[in-house]
């Protein structure tokens, strides 16, 4: 937690909140506003052990890797009935030297509900908003909202996570309550974040120049039937980034990423069946070295069954499939072109997980993955793709605390 004491965001967030409180007119009103102030947070520590390949640090050597830590603090306040201000600072280490664990503003929004009736509500959020992407993206780093330690990597991959995480801009949301359920829609326009992970995945990290997000659009339509018994969602985005290399670099390039996700879930009191299917069109155009440019469509899907038992326990079984290029599912063309091993172009992951909520604020989880392919293996944990093994096993342990 010492990381937070020195965080440059914490004083700023607190200062902002204090100044907001001060505009409440009377002491009584100020007290009412203060009553709405909430703080919540979480700490997660994981252990990753692999037999071959590395995931989140050097997991295949020694006793595994402890370089999987998530710490988040969240504050929110409602200065007016229709106004909500919410911010979250997140420090996350997933492999690497710990520099990435520096706390960052995960989201920071001013939310105003423009219209509100028994049937309908419409609102707008300005600031850094979380992208509504599939079922899990908006809270992907909060372990208590995840069904497993790792989200299905075919869709929520960690190797280019910065791109899909949050956008700086404006989003409009609406909710319509109909007789059978609720329809929700959200559309956002903003600038995505482009960190090293994306440069690494595009193999631009060693090149001179910088990759910057450009105005992007994201939207989700979600239907919730009968209080959440059945959920269906469709998410789509058009994300763009620009690589400016200067005269000595590999050339200026445009990166375009267009994912579509269909999400379905059925919930019973003691079990849930979830499935998501995604198509991802992505292209990089403009590099001087022609083979480095690409225009491919990837395909991902998973099916997940989770079952709750003995009130605090849950087990989960999932099969998760990723093809980076659906026209070259087995990666044969990729390997023939000398771009890397064929198994780096797909991944099929069979997962069994167990969760125990031994206390409302404490969760312990364990998970086993048997993976065929390295399609979602983070590049920075495995610098040489030629050194990776096609079939590998991974075991994870995780302890989480919320407050």
């Amino acid at each position, binding site marked *: 937690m010492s990381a937070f004491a020195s965080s440059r965001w914490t004083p700023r967030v607190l200062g902002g909140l204090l100044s907001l409180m001060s505009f409440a007119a009377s002491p009584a009103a100020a007290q009412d506003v203060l009553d*709405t102030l*909430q703080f*919540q947070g979480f700490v997660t520590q994981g252990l990753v052990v692999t037999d071959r390949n590395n995931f989140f640090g050097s997991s295949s050597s020694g006793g595994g890797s402890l370089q999987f830590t998530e710490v*988040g603090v*969240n504050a*929110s306040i*409602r200065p007016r*009935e*229709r106004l*909500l201000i*919410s*911010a*979250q600072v997140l420090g996350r280490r997933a492999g690497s030297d710990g520099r990435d664990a520096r706390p960052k503003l995960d*989201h*920071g*929004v001013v*939310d105003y*509900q423009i219209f*509100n*009736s*028994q049937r309908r*509500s419409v609102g707008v*959020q300005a600031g850094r*908003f*979380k992208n509504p992407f599939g079922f899990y993206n*908006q*809270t992907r780093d*909060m372990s*208590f*909202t995840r069904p497993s330690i790792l989200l299905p990597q075919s869709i929520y991959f960690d190797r280019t996570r910065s791109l899909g995480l949050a956008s700086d801009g404006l989003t409009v*949301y609406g*909710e319509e*309550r109909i007789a059978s*359920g*609720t329809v929700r829609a959200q559309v956002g326009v903003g600038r995505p974040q482009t960190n090293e992970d994306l440069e690494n995945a595009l193999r631009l990290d060693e090149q001179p120049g910088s990759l910057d997000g450009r105005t992007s659009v994201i939207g989700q339509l979600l239907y919730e039937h*009968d*209080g*959440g*018994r059945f959920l269906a969602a469709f998410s789509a985005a058009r994300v763009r980034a620009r690589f400016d290399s200067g005269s000595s670099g590999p050339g200026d390039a445009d990166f375009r990423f267009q994912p579509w996700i269909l999400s379905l879930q059925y*919930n*019973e*009191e003691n079990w849930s069946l979830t499935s998501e299917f995604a198509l991802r069109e992505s292209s990089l155009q403009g590099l001087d070295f022609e083979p480095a440019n690409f225009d491919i469509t990837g395909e991902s899907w998973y099916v997940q069954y989770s079952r*709750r038992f003995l*009130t605090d326990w849950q087990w989960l079984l999932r099969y998760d499939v990723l093809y980076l290029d659906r026209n070259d599912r087995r990666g044969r063309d990729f390997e023939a072109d000398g771009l890397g091993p064929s198994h780096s172009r797909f991944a099929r992951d069979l997962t069994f997980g167990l969760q125990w909520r031994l206390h*409302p604020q404490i969760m312990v989880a364990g998970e086993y993955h048997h993976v065929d392919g390295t399609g979602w293996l983070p590049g920075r944990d495995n610098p040489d793709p030629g050194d990776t093994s096609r079939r590998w096993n991974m075991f994870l342990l995780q302890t989480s605390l919320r407050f």
Partner: protein
Amino acid sequence: MEFGHGGSGEGIRDAHDSRQRAGLPMRRPFDDGRLERCARMLLALAGLRRSVARWIRIPSCRTLPGPNRLRDLVIALALCLLSPVLLAADADDSVVMIAHPGVTVDQLPRNVARAIFGMRQRTWPDGTAARVFVLPNSHPVHGRFVKERLEIVPHQLQLSWDRIVFSGTGQAPERVQTPGQMLEQVAATPGGVGYMEQGAVDERVRIITLDP
């Protein structure tokens, strides 16, 4: 649910619906799963006793007269048939939605109540802010309210709070530890809303009935 939805159960359900329409307090001995739980528990106990007896070979159990399984079943059935009578005899313990007396609503569609307790609907129909109070997830009154009144799966509710809080789209409800605190808080907080057993409700709060 074979007991709850069986022939005679329908008549009782209708009677309660008409009480609800008339704004009368409700009591639904058949509707809250207790009967089913009771039956299952008794049958399980009967089965367990038999297998334990067989396993450790207690002579007295083996020499009991008559076919044990049939006798256990008859006892279980008799108790279950009696249980509505027994259960109706205790205090009025159906769980109702309660609100601060300043809230100008007596009736709400169930999906609006779900949105309020799901922390997605932030205001009452008259525009005042809703302040939601909840008991711990493990509290039986919480479980019954969520399952029987809101008719949603309890773990889904906690998940939707977490998703709202940690995505910056809303706030968490306020926790109280006991039904007594629930009553105090809802009565003292303008816009306050919560739930409790009907028998424990007093005139400091307003009862809100839910339309299907």
